[in-house]
């Protein structure tokens, strides 16, 4: 435990010492959302509903940030054109 900090070195209150982005919550995923770009109408409902802000939109195509997507499936449920399918992680293509 040598590299861990003592209580005297911590910031006040319950501020974590690391940025929350350091924790790659994508590791938790069992099902992976895969977007069929041919069906996608870029309505961005998935972007709006994603509780993890893991839907990326740069202005051209909707993508998933697999580093943080926990695979909850809300995007697939909300997609009005069924462009998102939830694929078991072990069956999906390597990322």
């Amino acid at each position: 435990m040598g590299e861990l900090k003592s209580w005297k070195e911590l910031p006040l209150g319950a501020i974590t010492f690391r940025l929350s982005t350091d924790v790659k919550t994508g590791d938790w995923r069992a099902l992976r959302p895969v977007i069929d770009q041919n069906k996608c109408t870029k309505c961005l409902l998935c972007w709006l509903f994603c509780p993890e802000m893991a839907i990326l939109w740069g202005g051209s195509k909707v993508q998933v940030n697999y580093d943080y997507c926990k695979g909850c499936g809300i995007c697939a449920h909300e997609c009005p054109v069924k462009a998102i399918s939830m694929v078991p992680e072990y069956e999906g293509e390597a990322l």
Partner: protein
Amino acid sequence: MSVLEVVPKYPREKQVMINVNGDEAVAYALKQSYVDVVAAYPITPQTIIVEKFSEYVANGEVHTEFVAVESEHSAMSACVGAAAAGARAFTATSSQGLALMVEILYIASGMRLPIVMAVVNRALSAPINIHNDHSDAYLMRDSGWVMLFTENVQETYDTTIQAFKIAEHPEVQLPVSVHLDGFFLSHTLENIYALPDEAVYEFLGGARKLVKTKVDYFAEEVDYALDPGRPLSLGPLALYDYYFEMKIPQIKAMEYSEKVIKEVNEEWYKLTGRKYGNGLVDPYKLEDAEIVIVAMGSSAGTIRSVVKKYREKGVRAGLLRIRSFRPFPRKDVKELLENANVVAVLDKGIGPGSFGALYLDVVSTLYTSKSRPLIVNYIYGLGGRDLQPVHVAQIIDKLLEDLKRGYIPEEERLRFIGVRSS
């Protein structure tokens, strides 16, 4: 009140006499304390605090943002959010409302947010009861809040203002609850002395001041507050590798608050001419006392008057009123009680299967004293049952028997007073 040792900055003639009940006294203190956010939900016997304060808001007498929430869980959550954003936040509740808040109470203290809350103590259900005991306060005992118990309406007013100063002290940064007994104080009119507004403003140093902290991912120390321009996450995950370390500063801050409560009590004395013991404990005739009653809250007045009568009869009795229940003033309690022969700790609440919470603290404090006094626990006043002078006299008479006998029979460590038992 004894002769003043100092000339206060605001002697009585420079203060305003107001006729208020305990709840209105809290609201009046709040009006003067430059509170930014009040989020609360009504519950008897706390309702008048929020009712009265919302009048001040509606009249434009305060700048406070008043949030009418849908539950006490939300009230405390809103206070956590407001305080995390740097606001001076306040709420008030009682009984079931406090029970609903409990989850967030731990979050407020764990995040080191200096929220102030008035708890108008009321019994917990079932059966439903709206009257006073301390079972709701005992429920929050281990939540990491500084808990101050008041004896009368004047002290309630004084303590509400002091609470902000204690909570916001840079070395404390902990939430503080001010406890007043439901109905006995909350609904009882008393003439009290209030400070002029500017005196309170000066005492608190204006609005809440933020403290700085060092966070790894920023080069400079930052204000401990949420700011969209400089994002911080308060309270996210810390597991077995860090949770324990993050709890230690909270425990240290609670211990440090003893010093601050004492300092604030002294400062208040210099300002107003009023003080309550040393801030933590308020002793009465303990110097040579053989028999001591320990209690909290409004019953202390009744007990004091009976103790005085017994003193006149030549009985060496005394009273130790605990003002600060958390932090528990171990040092003072030990010093003040270790020369007594018999101590009765009065609890207005009980952990069934154990004892009253105050008794457990007093016993554990005195375990390491040289001459361990006999200590017995009296449970009294549950559900608002009045503690009458005759009850206190019965207690003292019984303690005199204990003193003569020289020991407390094991089955008599826990006694009940004022309950029909035959």
